[in-house]
């Protein structure tokens, strides 16, 4: 059925994929060959049909049953030709979640859709459920073969573009928090869904608040079983944390290539490169970034050779000190000029942006404090904290200012 042989070597596969791309993809115009302006929807369908969207998945589930090295070869070939659509089995959180946790029926219905166009957003956090994500209070109430949703979500990116949201909602209030949650694929384009962009301290508005009032989700859009959504959800969040650690939240200009560092350039430009005090700080900052790269390389080797995720857990924490530290030095290098901003003042503006954006790493996707808990408990094996809400009916658990969730 497929053009690609899952027993082929990565090299052979790479050649085959490049050949396929040369047949159908116009690298120069970044579109399907011969298609005017490149119809992305059609292109994605083509990639999907060839099994290249999710090559690691089995053939019965739209993939090719490929191994990691083979998948890498495919992604690399796509990257070489600047073609989109491959590697969704690594990046499409919605599809991955459905694939890993949903019923066969839902998978059969939705995966072909999700993998060929629609964007999914994440409806996880709530104003009262940040670090304590399982403390969500958005409610889903059964109404025949559908559920009626009411509540408020926050920190959702791509909300306006998304056709579906991965929604965590509470379906049972009389059991401990993790046991009353159901996971849904939630249609975003409906009445009762209001999206309000959040003005972030970076000046961006990539995130939104979502107000949901009597919106509807069909029962068959449940991912996993009723009240067992927390387990399905774990799949997705583990992935998100992994991606954060690789510093994907950074602007490219923050990255340091060999022998080139924006920080050193700024130091030179501000005539501070000969200041011995600044030199020590620059060296330390460069070191933190370089050693994080070295740690990540070891982490990848560890994961390959023995499946250990210990080192992987450090990267997100390390990234906080890198980003906050670099922004602090840049601020000091700029001196009084650091109070400026705007397009006329590129260096201050970039520095201000980076200083604010660093909180995206140290707060978003689990604060540094949560991350340290994870490292201490999951990696070092230190005992968990006391959890007053453990084993307690969610209705009775204390919430902001000491009120109870049921009050």
């Amino acid at each position, binding site marked *: 059925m497929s053009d690609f042989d899952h027993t082929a070597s990565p090299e052979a596969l790479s050649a085959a994929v490049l050949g396929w791309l040369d047949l159908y993809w116009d690298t120069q115009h970044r579109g399907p060959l011969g298609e005017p302006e490149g119809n992305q929807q059609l292109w994605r369908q083509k990639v999907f049909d060839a099994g290249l969207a999710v090559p690691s998945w089995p053939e019965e589930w739209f993939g090719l049953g490929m191994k990691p090295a083979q998948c890498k070869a495919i992604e690399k070939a796509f990257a070489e030709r600047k073609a989109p659509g491959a590697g969704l089995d690594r990046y499409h959180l919605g599809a991955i979640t459905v694939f890993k946790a949903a019923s066969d029926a839902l998978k059969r219905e939705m995966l072909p859709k999700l993998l060929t166009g629609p964007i999914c957003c994440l409806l996880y956090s709530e104003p009262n459920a940040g670090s304590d994500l399982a403390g969500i209070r958005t409610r889903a109430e059964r109404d025949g073969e559908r559920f009626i949703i009411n509540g408020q979500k926050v920190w959702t990116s791509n909300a306006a573009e998304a056709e579906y949201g991965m929604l965590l909602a509470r379906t049972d209030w009389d059991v401990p928090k993790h046991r009353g949650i159901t996971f849904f694929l939630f249609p975003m384009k409906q009445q009762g869904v209001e999206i309000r962009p959040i003005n972030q*301290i970076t000046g961006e508005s990539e995130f939104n608040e979502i107000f949901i009032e009597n919106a509807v989700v069909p029962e068959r859009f449940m991912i996993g079983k009723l009240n067992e959504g927390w387990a399905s959800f774990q799949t997705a969040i583990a992935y998100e944390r992994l991606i954060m650690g690789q510093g994907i939240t950074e602007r490219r200009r923050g990255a340091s290539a060999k022998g080139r560092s924006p920080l050193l350039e700024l130091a030179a430009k501000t005539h501070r490169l000969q200041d011995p005090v600044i030199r020590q700080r620059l060296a330390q900052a460069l070191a933190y970034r370089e050693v994080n790269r070295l740690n990540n390389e070891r982490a990848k080797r560890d994961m390959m050779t023995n499946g250990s995720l210990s080192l992987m857990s450090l990267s997100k924490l390390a990234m906080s000190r890198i980003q906050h530290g670099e922004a602090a030095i840049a601020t*000091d290098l700029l001196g009084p000029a650091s109070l*400026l901003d705007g397009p006329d003042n590129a260096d201050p503006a970039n520095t201000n942006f980076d200083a604010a954006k660093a909180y995206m790493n140290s707060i*978003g996707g689990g604060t540094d404090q949560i991350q340290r808990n994870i490292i201490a408990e999951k990696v070092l094996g230190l005992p968990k904290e006391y959890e007053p809400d453990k084993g307690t009916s969610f209705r009775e658990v204390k919430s*902001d200012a*000491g009120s109870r969730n049921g009050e």
Partner: protein
Amino acid sequence: MSTIQESERTAIQEELVRFLRAEAGEDTLRSGMQSDLGYDHAVWQKMAEMGLFGIDISEDFGGIGGSAVDTAMVAEGLGRSLLPVPFIETCVIAPALLEASDMTDESRKILTRIAQGTATIAIGGNADIVPFRDPDCRLAVKADGTMSGEVSLVMHGGSADFLLLAFYSGNQTRCLLVSSDHDYTIENQTANDPALRPAKISLADVPFIELTGWSNDNFEQAGWQGIVALSAQQTGAARAIFEITVDYLQTRYQFGRPIGSFQALKHIAADLFLEVESATSASQAAARALASKAPQTAQSVALAGFLCNDAFREVSAQAIQLHGGIAYTQEHVAHLYWRRARATLSMFGDSDLHREAYLSAWEAAA
């Protein structure tokens, strides 16, 4: 020393606190941020009516003859509420320099107007008394008695009634007063702190009044007054955002318990408390040293200079972290404190500079 009695000072302080709480809250701050001035002009006027602007001006000019301790008290209050008014420039540095210079009718008039709250001063240049020094400024005095040039980072330069330009010229420091009655070009600069109003000023053949007769000691003293007033502002602001943060730790629940019951957050709060109190002690000691002309003034001022800088920076940065996501939004007040902290880091010299000055003072005393 201050001519203000302790009881008077307490009365002024209480009135100020009451006033700021009632009329300079977050709403006022935010509406001011939208305006050209950057702050609410009504607030400025009411402070003038309270006599706060003459606090460090002698009674001869309608002031109340206070000292650095008194100005610090006002600055601390302004810091708490983040009010971005040109208090330090107008009411601290300019009066210090004017009173130290040869008196003219013009300078008497300006001092009186400052005390009344009817004149604001913006300060620019590259000399030590300049809040935000522009190392690239080009200012020059011409033979015909006018001046020309360009200077950036002049805070409130667009709205001030007078520009005080202080710059190095050859071996000499010159201090010129330029009235806004004259023509010069103002280009507003975008600031990262949305309440601040820096401007780039371009002057071509503009008449000026030169301040003369001040000594290097007077000049140094004026700079110190700026550092100390700033340190008081930073201390007030650091304490305010610290209190907001501790409140949040009490009321925010996660995992069925107030987040302030988590030991790691408690410990950060304890460490920040040490920073806030240390900044307070350093700032107060510097103000007292300055007011009493104590021999260790240089050392005390430098100490306050970097400890308060660093404390405000650290406390406001951690405040965002401790609040979590909510403080990543413009809606929450935390980032305003954090922006102010970053904006004032290099005001009157950065922490490294103050540390170096502090050590030099130790060596000089040894």
